[in-house]
């Protein structure tokens, strides 16, 4: 699955959309940016609703647009599902007719998939109603159902959880994973636009940051959270790790997880499936680097349960603080980088004589799950 996008379009004197990116292996691209940064314009160009002055769009090696050679695949032939910010339900058609308006066959799609989508989105009882009888949240859910059921090659979601309450949002996120794995045609690419970083963390595997029509950064999610955390609105790098739950101790309410070559104990959470890779996130400021010059036995907290061993690979100065990259050896679980990044005061580098290549211990006090839940260690 891959996309290649080059778009150049001057909308007015003050706004120029100038996007260029090539990502060979992306399934869900999370697009983040302030209002007016060009997110919806980008989606409209991907859909073919707006033609750029110059540009090229290639999805899975198929040219959809090339202004130079005159290629422009018509909108109706692109096999797109598009959940607009403003729903765009057909007012004269019932909910059922809206959902099933697209008559194209979708590879892998089974009748039970339709039922599943409608149940998770809570719209099965609305099928005979008309859009003007629906609330804003109901319209949004119907729009999502119509989009998920109709997309073939590209799925565009523009703020899809707008108007949904917390419970409905969780239903949507819960639906999304099985949708991606079992219902969506193979090689379908998803563009997910949101103002909420926690949604993008949960849904996307790549992140793109837009600002005033330009791409500030685009890369895999883990790299973006660690290296480009400031444009994402974070104060500190957010380290993405893949861990494995080793056991659940229900009596003592704790779960043992493997991180790199170390183990961590967290409060019992059976959402961590045993021996299955699970992504977690650790805020760079919540990683405490322990003074390596002290006795190593004295370093361990009584339980010895929330420290990770690692090796400093890089120290980067940044005014009064330093970013320290630490390799924690995740050789067995290589989906995400093994390097944690933490921030410590600059004086501590000298005080503790920290150098690259040094073995250190990290004290982890808090982790974040993919759904944004924080857990103390």
């Amino acid at each position, binding site marked *: 699955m891959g996309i290649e996008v080059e778009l150049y379009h001057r909308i007015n004197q003050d706004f120029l959309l100038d996007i260029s990116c090539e990502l060979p292996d992306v399934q869900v691209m999370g697009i983040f940016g302030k209002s007016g940064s060009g997110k919806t314009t980008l989606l409209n160009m991907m859909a073919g609703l707006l033609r750029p002055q110059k540009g090229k769009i290639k999805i899975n090696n198929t040219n959809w647009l090339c202004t130079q050679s005159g290629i422009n695949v*018509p*909108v109706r032939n692109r096999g797109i599902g598009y959940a607009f910010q403003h729903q765009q339900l057909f*007012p*004269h058609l019932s909910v059922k007719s809206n959902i099933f*308006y*697209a*008559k*194209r066959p979708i590879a892998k799609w089974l009748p039970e998939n339709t039922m599943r989508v409608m149940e998770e989105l809570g719209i099965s009882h609305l099928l005979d109603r008309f859009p003007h009888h629906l609330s804003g949240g109901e319209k949004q859910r119907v729009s999502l159902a119509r989009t998920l059921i109709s997309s073939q090659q590209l799925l565009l979601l523009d703020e899809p959880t707008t108007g949904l309450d917390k419970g409905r949002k969780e239903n949507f996120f819960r639906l999304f994973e099985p949708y991606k794995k079992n219902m969506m045609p193979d090689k379908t690419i998803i563009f997910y636009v949101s103002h909420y970083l926690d949604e993008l963390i949960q849904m996307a595997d790549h992140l793109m940051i837009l600002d005033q029509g330009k791409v500030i950064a685009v890369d895999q999610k883990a790299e973006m959270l660690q290296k480009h955390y400031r444009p994402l609105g974070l104060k500190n790098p957010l380290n993405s790790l893949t861990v494995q739950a080793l056991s659940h101790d229900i009596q003592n309410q704790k779960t043992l997880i493997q991180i790199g070559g170390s183990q961590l104990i967290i409060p019992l959470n059976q959402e961590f499936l045993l021996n299955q890779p699970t992504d977690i996130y650790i805020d760079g400021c919540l990683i405490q680097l322990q003074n390596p010059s002290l006795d190593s036995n004295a370093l361990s907290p009584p339980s010895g349960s929330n420290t990770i061993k690692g090796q400093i690979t890089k120290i980067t100065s940044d005014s009064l603080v330093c970013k320290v990259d630490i390799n924690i050896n995740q050789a067995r679980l290589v989906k995400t980088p093994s390097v944690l990044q933490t921030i410590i005061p600059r004086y501590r580098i000298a005080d503790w004589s920290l150098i690259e290549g040094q073995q250190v211990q990290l004290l982890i006090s808090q982790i974040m799950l993919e759904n944004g839940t924080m857990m103390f260690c």
Partner: protein
Amino acid sequence: MILTEAEWQIIALSIQIGFWSCMLNFLPAFSIAWLLSRKKFWGRFIVEALVYLPLILPPVVVGYGLLWVFGNFGLLGKWLNLWFGWDFVFSWYGAVVSSAIMAFPLMVRSFRLSIDHMGVAWDQTAQILGAGRLRILLTIVLPLILPGICAGVFLGFARSLGEFGATITFVANIANQTQTLPLAIYSLMQQPGGEILAWRLCLFSLAIAFIALTASEYLMRRWHKQYF
């Protein structure tokens, strides 16, 4: 109020001419309305000016122009008569053409308002869902703008019924052929003792115009309320 046979004939002719002028106008008015609403092209302002010209030109000027074009020795009339035997002058066909031209701007305006109000969003949504142009027209556009279309047709029909200047100039005032309601009222006014008959026809005209306007307004409001 019971109408005489002569009055019914005048009304029937007026309705016949009104009906056929709407039929003649429908496709061109819809096409022009769509073009002006959805497409940007050079010369658009010229097309708009030409479309709305009959609204402000003196109707007699329109009628005189029709004589030059469709008269028996006119630019087109000569050939239409020669090839097809069509004779517009002094016939109800000519009355249809003059009424159609005068009603055209109203129909275009009404259709265009509906298309403008509808916007492009639903059209685009249907395209994204894989619908072709014809399916979009039949399943999305026409159903959504239908009340506006009906309102435009009612207005056009009412305007056709009331057309006087262009009709009398182009096709004269011939009983059972071109004598529509306004022409009949005009003739009755010239006759001694014809005032009461003129009044009767005036009331009928007023009723039709009132019904057409209120129906048009009702449909537009209802459409707006339902979909927007």
